[in-house]
């Protein structure tokens, strides 16, 4: 219901805004106190412009967490400048020297490696893949009851063409020893205090060597923006972006599972298929979040957008999953009683998101409940109800109420 309240606030604001603009009155004192009281209740998001980035929705500035505005989610590939940003610790890298940067591969390997960027790019076969990235907490602000954490709406996700080298090849070059169970991954970011746990993630050794996990040095044909992990980041196709370690600087091959707050306490979901639990009955066991389930959203109409009776309208949005790709997206304009197929955009591979479009002519004035649901190539469908204490892994069938005039 938070989203609906946001939308209604937005609608009432926009009417006033037009009148306010006409009057041209702009008293600085009027808003100052209001802002300091509670920006999250103000309705209009704060936009911010960070280096190499377009104007994005500001969640936090230290460390930076920037959300992609809805309008960017209409295309097959998300522009680098609009791609969301999410760092955990305030000591983020702001300067990288290509001469001195090294990726260290250590631990249970026959030959520890210290690879320069040019070595990484020249010694291993380049591979390219379109893959969808999404923050585990994307859509957190849509959960009801609300939960604490980064209050993302729909823009902690994006789709990009990544180019890099296979993690498998790099591990093979180092020679993984018998008994290895995981790889531990970390980047250049540093915690603000000595007692704060360094941001680290782990992958099972078989996953790390599946030939799909990539060390990427290009994003949509360009070097990664600094805020998206320059000079290299891990790409874990189909898995939540918490594993896509940015500014990747160290890979350690482990013979014991990595013990870290970031695997053991954070980024955990209820131990069931739909990451579902009830506030009164929390799941007794949790597991680390991993592969992304199927989900789909409306991009058009945008929240608060009004449609005209009798006039054809292009509904549009994206659907995504983390394993087999999207086979079908369906639309309902009657609150889920009847469904019809949307047309799917280009198929860029099973780890890409899929845009969709559907023409809809509102028959008469009134309020309509639009809904969208997607099915994967392997037959996976979306949840009909979902909540969890951390606001992770949203996969519920979404609705959007639209006013037709």
């Amino acid at each position: 219901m938070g989203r609906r309240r946001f939308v209604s606030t937005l609608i009432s604001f926009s009417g006033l805004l037009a009148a306010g603009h006409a009057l041209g009155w702009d008293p600085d004192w009027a808003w100052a106190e209001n802002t300091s009281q509670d920006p999250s209740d103000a309705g209009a998001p704060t936009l911010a412009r960070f280096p190499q980035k377009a104007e994005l929705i500001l969640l936090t500035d230290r460390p930076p967490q920037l959300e992609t505005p809805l309008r960017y989610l209409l295309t097959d590939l998300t522009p680098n400048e609009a791609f969301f940003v999410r760092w955990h610790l305030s000591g983020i890298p702001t300067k990288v020297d290509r001469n001195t940067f090294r990726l260290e591969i250590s631990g249970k390997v026959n030959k520890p490696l210290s690879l320069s960027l040019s070595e990484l790019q020249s010694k291993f076969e380049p591979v390219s893949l379109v893959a969808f990235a999404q923050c585990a907490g994307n859509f957190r602000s849509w959960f009801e009851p609300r939960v604490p954490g980064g209050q993302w709406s729909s823009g902690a996700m994006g789709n990009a063409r990544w180019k890099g080298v296979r993690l498998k090849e790099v591990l093979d070059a180092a020679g993984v020893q018998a008994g290895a169970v995981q790889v531990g991954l970390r980047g250049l970011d540093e915690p603000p205090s000595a007692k704060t746990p360094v941001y680290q993630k782990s992958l099972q050794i078989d996953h790390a060597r599946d030939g799909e996990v990539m060390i990427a040095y290009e994003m949509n044909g360009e070097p990664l923006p600094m805020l998206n992990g320059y000079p290299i980041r891990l790409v874990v196709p189909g898995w939540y972006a918490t594993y896509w370690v940015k500014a990747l600087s160290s890979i350690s091959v482990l013979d014991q599972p990595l013990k870290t707050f970031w695997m053991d306490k954070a980024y955990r979901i209820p131990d069931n298929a739909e990451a579902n639990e009830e506030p009164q009955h929390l799941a007794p066991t949790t597991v680390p979040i991993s592969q992304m389930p199927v989900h789909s959203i409306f991009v058009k109409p945008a929240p608060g957008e009004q449609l005209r009776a009798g006039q054809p309208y292009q509904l549009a949005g994206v659907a995504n999953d983390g394993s087999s790709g999207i086979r079908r997206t369906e639309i309902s304009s009657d609150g889920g009683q009847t469904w019809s197929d949307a047309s799917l955009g280009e198929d860029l591979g099973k780890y890409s998101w899929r845009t969709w479009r559907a023409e809809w002519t509102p028959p008469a004035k009134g309020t309509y409940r639009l809904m969208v649901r997607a099915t994967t190539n392997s037959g996976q469908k979306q949840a009909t109800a979902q909540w969890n204490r951390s606001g992770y892994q949203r996969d519920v069938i979404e609705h959007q109420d639209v006013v037709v005039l």
Partner: protein
Amino acid sequence: MGRWMFLWMLVAVTIAVALAQQAQSQSRSHSPKAPESAADNGQVQQITLPQYPLQIPPGPNAEVYRRDCLACHTARYVSMQPHFPKAVWQSEVKKMVDVYGAPIPDTDQALIVEYLVAVKGVEATPAQGATTK
């Protein structure tokens, strides 16, 4: 009388409009305090992070909150949250200390919770009370 009422209504509407317009300008052109910067001489890539300082809302122990919490992160971590019951804020502060290693003296923790409840608190409902981690 009708005329006075009309004038007062005009004043009220004008103020509302001005408030809303400020909200708009706040959201559209909130300019960074540092200029955009991304240098790349071919070998060294460097950016300068802009800051978007936020005036924190007044409340009990606001200075304790500022000193203990904002050393590591922006006030926007709190400002972006919806309102939560005290139990949620207690667990958030505890999490910051226990797992993020925030150097917050024991005596300050309850003071910070008091501040957070004052600016982002709400009466507990059964559902929300159970969302504590």
